[in-house]
């Protein structure tokens, strides 16, 4: 998928996506010092629903544009482009793994899984998998996901500080009544699912 769609998809899957049409450009999360050595202009981060608008509304500064789109082959808009190249780089992996918007999407996806995914862990995993890739998981895939969930549930039950830190990512409100360790483990699963080749690729 194209740069903007990859982000839109992650937001949509988690339920964060703001589908409002039109309006002014917005300023989602960006590393705080990204513009530090690029002149006087400042990136004033948006808040609330403006953080989750579709990528097409992200403010576009041609000389130094939104870095997460840049690594996904978005053009600089300095010349006409009929077709965007599609590449596959480690810097892209770092974005979908660590960019705050993807971590937040994983966390809110985790919350959604806990609220809407059904009773059993297997049902929850199938629900989440279908949200991301639009098909049910195969047996082997389900086994891998079950193992990832179990491992991370154990990890975050044993390390309350790490669990609290993980579920504290992002500005979206968190439901206080959900178990922190459970939510952290589901966030980890969300982070895996949002990074699958099948999630970010359209066949």
């Amino acid at each position, binding site marked *: 998928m194209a740069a903007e769609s990859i982000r839109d998809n992650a937001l949509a899957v988690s339920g964060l996506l703001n589908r409002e049409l039109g309006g002014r450009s917005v300023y989602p999360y960006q590393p705080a010092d990204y513009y530090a050595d690029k002149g006087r202009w400042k990136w004033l981060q948006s808040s609330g629903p403006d953080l989750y608008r579709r990528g097409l509304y992200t403010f576009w500064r041609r000389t130094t544009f939104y870095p997460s789109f840049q*690594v996904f082959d978005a053009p600089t808009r*300095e010349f006409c482009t009929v077709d965007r190249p599609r590449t*596959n780089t480690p810097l*892209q*992996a770092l974005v979908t793994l660590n960019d705050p918007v993807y971590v937040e999407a994983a966390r809110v996806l985790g919350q959604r899984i806990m609220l809407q995914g059904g009773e059993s862990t297997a049902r929850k995993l199938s629900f989440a998998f279908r949200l991301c890739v639009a098909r049910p998981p195969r047996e082997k895939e389900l086994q891998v996901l079950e193992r990832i969930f179990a491992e991370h549930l154990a990890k975050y039950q044993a390390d309350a500080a*790490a669990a609290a830190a993980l579920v504290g990512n992002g500005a979206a409100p968190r439901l206080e009544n959900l178990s922190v360790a459970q939510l952290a483990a589901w966030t980890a699963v969300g982070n895996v699912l949002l990074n*699958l*080749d099948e999630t970010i690729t359209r066949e």
Partner: protein
Amino acid sequence: MFNDLAELNRALTRRSFFTRTSASLGSTALASLLSPTLFAAPDAGGAIPHFAPKAKRVIYLFMSGGPSHIDLYDPKPKLAELHGQEMPASVRGMQRVTLMTRNQGQFLVAASQFKFVKHGQSGQELSELLPHIGKIADRIAIIRSMHTEPINHDPAVNFIQTGSGVVGRPTLGSWLSYGLGSENKNLPDFIVLLSGAGGQPVVSRYWSNGFLPGKYQGVQFRSQGEAVLYLSNPPGIDGQTRKALIDGVNELNRLKYDSLADPEIQARINSFELAYRMQMSVPELMDISSESQETLERYGAQPGQASFANNCLLARRLAERGVRFIQLYHRDWDHHLDLPNRMRQQCPQTDQASAALVRDLQERGMLDETLVIWGGEFGRTTFNQGPLKKDSYGRDHHPRCYSIWMAGGGVKGGITLGKTDDFGYNLVEDGVHVHDFQATILHLLGIDHQRLTYRFQGRDFHLTDVSGNVVPKLLA
């Protein structure tokens, strides 16, 4: 039923259809599968290198703003007696000047305040502002006859980086990583380091891949905050957890690959592994405190600081790790006013470390295969800009002639190429146009600049556009 579906998928997937049916695409995909690293197989075709390369990599010390050739590399003793007099119209000719000096009404000669000193066996003449570069004079080729076309910063930087004053073309580093691929497993091919404050902004377009695929984009390693954007894991995910999650992603991707045999999925798996290796290797790479005290002092580097000296040392560390193109930008050479004082501040920030880098590379036996380039986007005018005082003058942009130097990587050391007139205003001999400069760099890396092309919008583009000649006098 899943098996049937998988079979159907296998037969019909658009991506695998193309990779299976097109011979050229198929062989590219196969190359990337067989290669040990994701970036290793150059996409530009099998013929590269076109001939035996002299250099394996480039370290380009870009002096942003346009350092004054008249005060650094191109002595003009005759100007002393003309200081403060109007430049002869015959020298200025019909050449355009910028809006900043066009209306000042007079074009008074400003002789350099700085003495020039002969260095080494070659007797190369350099300004007293550059004592350390003086010590490597026998190893560098000074080009006094560089010339370019644009007269303002941004187009001129674009021109020397992309061969075009129009924005949107790929930069030199992108062309090289497209043409040559990578030598290392843990790092991108084209890495950019910035230093200096003030002056002209340095924008990410200067390391853009233009219309080349995004994997050829330069990657800025930042000296403050995270070295690479999003390299650090978010709060709540430690290194061990990250490893486990990446393993999970790849395990699932591998299951998918087993059912589809789509090489793109294999490439994705490689990307995630490389991302993890970068997370592991980059912090160590950026930590220069492991260098000996002697080395740090030689460069004038101080761990934890953002400086040109630190970046020069990092450039050597990147070169050791096989990075193909290392681009440094140092800002604030745009001395329109009060040039002598500003040069006295600027030169010590760059002179020592530039020379230390060349000497260090040589001592480690790497200079022969590493091309080092020092220079800006244009030179500065002989005539004064702003108030002309006894001890102060300023200079405007001058694209018609200026000086740079190159060292190592198949370049002849201890020579001065080209000549300008007694005013340092016009070319007299051996002009080196930006396209000639670019053609020569590609030549040193084993590439015929006319055969490194990329088809975009129906045309085969070159870095050197439709011109450029290799400069044989520079070759060792």
